[in-house]
C-alpha cells in the first residue's frame, strides 16, 4: 500500500498537536545522561525513579558516603529506642536493580558551561541534565566559639546522622542525674522543623526513665515552637512535668566550649550537655556553583521541574532549595521533589512537555515518647499565577493527640521511604 505525502502530512499535524500536549508518539530518544549529586532522600530517589521510568537514560549517582544513615528517626537513638544500624541502608540495589552507576566520591567542581562534574578522585562525568541534592552545610562561622575542631567535637549538632548521633547519646549517658541538657535551635528555615522539639522529647523520655532529676532546656531563636506547637507544648507539660523548659527568642550568639556555656544576647546559660544546631544553608557545592539565590543560603528553582532559576540544565532538590510557602525542609518532601523532578527531566531529555500541575505531599512524624507519635501533614499544588507551590486549602493537618498507632506508622514510614529511595 502507499500513502501520498499530502495524506501523511495531514495525519502528522495531529501528531504535532499531541506532541505539543506533552506526549511523545515517536520512539523515545536514545537516552541522555543524568548525573545526580547527593544520595539522600532527594538524590537517591531521583536516581532510582529516572532509571525506573526511563531505563534508556544513563544515570550516575555521586555520593561520598558508602552507606545512607537516616537523620529522620535518629532522635530515637538518643533515647536508646533505635540503633544507627536500624537507620542504615546501602546503595547496592540502586546499581544492581536499577542500573544506576553509583560513585562513592566527592564532587569538587561543576562546570555548567561544559556540563561536566569533577570529583576528588579526578573522575570527570559529563551530563545532559544535572540534579544537585546536596543537603545542608552548617554555618559554624556564625558561632565564633565553634571555630576549632576541638570545640566542635565537644559541642555536637547531631544534625547529620552518624558518629555525632552516637557521641551525643554517650554524652547523655555520662551526664549525672540532676544535670541539664540544653539544645539551641536556629532561626527558621532550617532542616527538619519539628526535629529539635522531637529531640527534646526523646531526651526527656530518657531522663524520666534513667535520671529523673535532670532537666531539658530548649533555647529557641524562633518566637515560638515552629512545628506542631500545641502538641509539643502539651507533651512537655503532661508527659514530662517540671522537666522541660522552653525559651523562645533565645538566639545563640556564641559558645564557650570548655565550660559548655551558651551565650545568648542578654545572658549566659551553662549546661552539662550542650547541643547546638547551628544556622545552615545549602551545601558548599551549591554555593560554589552559583546556585544559591536567596539570603546567601538557598537555591531558587522552578517548582514544576526543580530546574535552577539561574543555571540551565541543573536541577536542585531537597533542603537546599528555596522552600515554597509552608513547605518544610523534610526528607519526605525531598523524596517528593525528586519524583516531580524525575518526571520533568525525562520529558526535557525527550523534548517533551513538563507536567504543569505537579502535586506534592508531606507527612512528618515526631516521637514524643518511646512509642507515642504526633504528625503534621500537608498537600501542595502548583499555582501558575503565583508561580509557586501552595498548600491545598482544607487538606493537611496534625494529630489530635500523641498515640501509639501513629508510632507504628512512623516506623513503617521509615522502612517504606528508605526502600522507596534505595530499594
Amino acid at each position, binding site marked *: 500500500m502507499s500513502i501520498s505525502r499530502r495524506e501523511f502530512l495531514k495525519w502528522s499535524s*495531529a501528531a504535532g498537536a499531541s506532541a505539543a500536549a506533552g506526549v511523545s508518539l515517536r520512539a523515545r530518544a536514545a537516552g541522555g545522561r543524568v548525573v545526580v549529586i547527593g544520595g539522600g532522600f532527594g538524590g537517591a530517589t531521583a536516581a532510582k525513579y529516572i532509571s525506573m521510568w526511563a531505563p534508556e537514560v544513563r544515570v550516575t549517582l555521586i555520593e561520598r558516603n558508602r552507606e545512607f544513615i537516616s537523620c529522620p528517626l535518629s532522635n530515637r537513638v538518643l533515647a536508646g529506642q533505635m540503633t544507627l544500624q536500624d537507620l542504615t541502608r546501602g546503595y547496592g540495589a540502586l546499581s544492581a536493580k536499577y542500573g544506576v552507576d553509583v560513585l562513592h566520591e566527592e564532587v569538587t567542581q561543576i562546570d555548567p558551561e561544559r556540563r561536566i562534574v569533577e570529583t576528588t578522585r579526578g573522575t570527570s562525568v559529563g551530563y545532559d541534565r544535572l540534579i544537585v541534592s546536596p543537603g545542608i552545610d552548617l554555618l559554624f562561622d556564625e558561632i565564633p566559639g565553634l571555630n576549632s575542631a576541638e570545640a566542635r567535637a565537644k559541642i555536637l549538632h547531631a544534625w547529620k546522622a552518624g558518629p555525632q548521633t552516637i557521641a551525643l547519646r554517650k554524652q547523655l549517658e555520662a551526664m549525672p542525674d540532676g544535670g541539664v541538657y540544653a539544645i539551641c535551635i536556629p532561626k527558621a528555615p532550617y532542616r527538619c522543623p519539628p526535629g529539635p522539639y522531637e529531640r527534646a522529647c526523646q531526651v526527656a523520655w530518657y531522663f524520666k526513665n534513667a535520671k529523673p532529676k535532670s532537666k531539658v532546656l530548649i533555647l529557641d531563636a524562633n518566637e515560638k515552637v515552629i512545628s506542631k506547637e500545641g502538641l509539643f507544648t502539651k507533651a512537655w507539660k503532661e508527659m514530662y512535668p517540671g522537666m522541660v523548659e522552653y525559651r523562645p527568642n533565645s538566639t545563640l550568639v556564641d559558645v564557650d566550649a570548655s565550660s559548655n556555656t551558651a551565650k545568648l544576647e542578654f545572658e549566659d546559660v551553662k549546661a552539662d550537655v550542650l547541643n547546638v544546631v547551628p544556622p545552615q544553608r545549602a551545601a558548599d557545592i551549591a554555593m560554589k556553583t552559583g546556585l544559591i539565590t536567596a539570603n546567601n543560603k538557598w537555591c531558587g528553582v522552578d517548582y514544576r521541574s526543580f530546574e535552577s532559576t539561574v543555571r540551565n540544565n541543573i536541577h536542585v532538590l531537597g533542603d537546599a532549595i528555596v522552600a515554597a510557602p509552608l513547605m518544610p525542609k523534610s526528607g519526605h518532601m525531598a523524596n*517528593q521533589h525528586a519524583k516531580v523532578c524525575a518526571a520533568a527531566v525525562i520529558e526535557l531529555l525527550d523534548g517533551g512537555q513538563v507536567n504543569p500541575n505537579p502535586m506534592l505531599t508531606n507527612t512528618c512524624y515526631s516521637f514524643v515518647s518511646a512509642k507515642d507519635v504526633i504528625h503534621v501533614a500537608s498537600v501542595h499544588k502548583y499555582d501558575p499565577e503565583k508561580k509557586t507551590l501552595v498548600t*491545598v486549602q482544607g487538606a*493537611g493537618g496534625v494529630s489530635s493527640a500523641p498515640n501509639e498507632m501513629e508510632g507504628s*506508622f512512623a516506623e513503617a514510614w521509615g522502612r*517504606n521511604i528508605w526502600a522507596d529511595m534505595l530499594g
Partner: protein
Amino acid sequence: MNIDRLVALAVLGWAMLAAWPAQAADNTARSLAATCTGCHGTNGVSAGGIPTIAGLEQARIVTLLQEFRDGKRPSTVMQQHAKGYTDEQIELIAAWFAARK
C-alpha cells in the same frame, strides 16, 4: 482512495488517538501515584506496617479515598491527604495502582 490506503490511514489514526490520551494520562497518573509511594511503597507495594495498595480494585481505592476524605472512615493522616486531591486525580491514582498487578 483505495482500500489499502484507507486501512493504513485508519490504523495510523487509531494508533495516535489511542496512544495520545493514554500516554498523557498515564504519565499524569504515574506522577500523582508517586505522591503516595513514600509511605505506601514504590509502585504501591509496601515494605510493611502501612497497607499495600498495588493491585487493589480501582473502584475500591476510589471508595476508600472518598470515605477517608469525607470522614466516613476514621484515619490518622489519610483524611488530611485525601482532601488534597480532586475527584479526577483520585480516579487517576486509583486506576494506576489497580493496574500494578
